[in-house]
């Protein structure tokens, strides 16, 4: 009886010490998943998900508090990658993917207030105070932040047109399904 109690106490003490030391020296700082999720997000800090930036969104995703479909500019592609990383099955069929978009300034409506340029997180705007602005299309990822701040509704969000080089065949049989 004494031997059994003694050996269990000894084992408990040893293992407890080892675990205690391990938890101090092998501790993980922060959640490594957060960094991995952050790498999948666009990183433009547009804030359309409702969080302050991509870092906060990644943290919420890692805690399981946000859906994988949270990122509007990332679209279906980012949602698919996130669901794969997190191992959750996301119902992407309901996810409305508008496809890639870009912001376009209607020059006759622009008053040159620079609000859009200050809002843009990728410096896609060219413009000066009281001069008509324009968007460098390759730098725009369609987060629509500028669209929301424009006081004259001069900005419209357009779908990126399909070019000959980018066009590809539809999935066989996809016409019959719709």
């Amino acid at each position: 009886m004494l031997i059994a109690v003694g050996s269990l106490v000894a084992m408990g003490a040893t293992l407890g010490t080892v675990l205690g030391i391990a938890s101090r020296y092998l501790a993980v700082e922060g959640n490594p998943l957060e960094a991995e999720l952050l790498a999948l997000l666009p990183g433009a800090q547009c804030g359309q998900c409702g969080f302050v930036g991509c870092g906060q969104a990644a943290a919420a995703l890692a805690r399981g508090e946000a859906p994988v479909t949270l990122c509007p500019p990332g679209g279906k592609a980012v949602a698919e990658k996130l669901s794969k990383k997190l191992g959750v099955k996301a119902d992407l069929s309901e996810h409305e993917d508008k496809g890639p978009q870009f912001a376009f300034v209607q020059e006759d409506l622009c008053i040159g207030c620079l609000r859009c340029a200050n809002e843009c997180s990728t410096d896609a705007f060219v413009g000066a105070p009281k001069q008509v602005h324009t968007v460098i299309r390759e730098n725009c990822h369609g987060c629509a932040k500028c669209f929301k701040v424009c006081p004259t509704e001069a900005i419209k969000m357009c779908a990126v047109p399909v070019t000959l080089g980018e066009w590809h065949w539809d999935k066989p049989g996809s016409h019959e399904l719709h």
Partner: protein
Amino acid sequence: MKIFPVRGGIHPDYRKDLTCEKAIVPMPMPQKLYLPLQQHIGAPADPVVGAGDLVKKGQLLARAQGAVSASTHAPTSGRIAEVALITAPHPSGLPQLTIVIEPDGKDEWAELPAPVADPFAASSQEIRERVAAAGIVGLGGATFPSAVKLNLGSQNKLETLLINGAECEPYLTCDDRVMREYSAEVIDGARIMAHALGTPKIVVGIEENKPQAIAAMTQAASAFSNITVVGVPVQYPMGSERHLTQAITGLETPAKKLTAELGVVVHNVGTARAVHHAIRYSRPLLSRVVTVSGGAITEGKNIDVPLGTLVSDLVAFCGGLKEPPRRIVNGGPMMGQPLPSLEVPVVKGTSGILALTADEVNERDTKPCIRCGGCVTICPCGLVPVEMAAFIRKDNLDGAAKLGVMDCFSCGSCSYVCPSHIPLVHFFNYAKGRLNDADRERRKLERIKMLAETRNTRVEQQAQAKKAAAAAAAAARKAAAAAASENPENKASV
């Protein structure tokens, strides 16, 4: 010469007899010519003419832009009617910027630069520049700018220039006719290209179902000891660059590598002829030989067509359509693409126009896969079409990519042999398009991330600079105030 075996492939009904005895005839100049700015792989050309300009035959219309691009020239003299968006000869039917010429019927040549006096004394650089200035692209159908391909000698040690006269696509006979009728021009062009590339050997590979072409080319090449003309087995897709290289050298080109890394560069016979014209006569690429064939065509022909001629004009020149075609195909029936309408132009890559009847198209309903493995046996790239298609059907594109769907070059052999008529190659074309989209998206995302980071650092720096400036200003104010309180009489005196 020893010919090495090539795996897989099929033996379709060739139907080349419809046009193989028809000599090449020139196409009469149509009412209008439509020259798209992009008739090649790479960046579209930049137009240097505008509506209303008068141009002469051979004059530059649009200049190549960037490293991989090709210029376009006026196929005849006339007036530029407009530069407008016109339906492209592409299955999507999307519009493309196109220069429209109204020919004046005089067919007057522009002043051309003097031809290269002795091409074999000229530098490789000079020949490449001439070929680029002539707007020559691969006329086998891939339309890769030839001047870029002639530069492969600078990075690789090249042994052989392989002239591709396999023409393994059914129906097409344009290369066959070019080899029979212009063998001397093809051989001369090949010798010039070999000189530019620095390859000691030239091999002309021709499928054995073209004995007259082999005879003509052998005779034309007999004067040159470094040229060999060989017959290769009749086996689709022998005309693919990689497979022809394997048949001739026995070496298999690794995935995602070029044949140049094996010391082989492949050019089409039509391209060789175009190089001959560009170097010997300074003539840019203004026309190409097109086979018009198929069961719905009244009379199949091989025609020397000015670039930009509408397919409808071409069909009319062949006596029109006997019956409504089930499909109009641009290129051969295996790898060719359906055309959205007849009102699209012939471009540099158009090797054939086929008007196929319902019998020839032979559309049948897709049935479930019986797992016969036929597609696996015939795949000339050694892929597993059945597995790849299963992944793609479930939208698991990464799974398909792991099995090598990007190494498929869409020869269509798997779709051809499938007893259940599963559109296998269609699945692969779709998957390749989606994977390319994803790749573009990934690159865009990287760019956006980089831009956002740059902006963040800039904003931070600005904020810090502002803070520092404010602190400095505050310190200065404090110092001034202190100085003022110390010398109140000074302040009063001011």
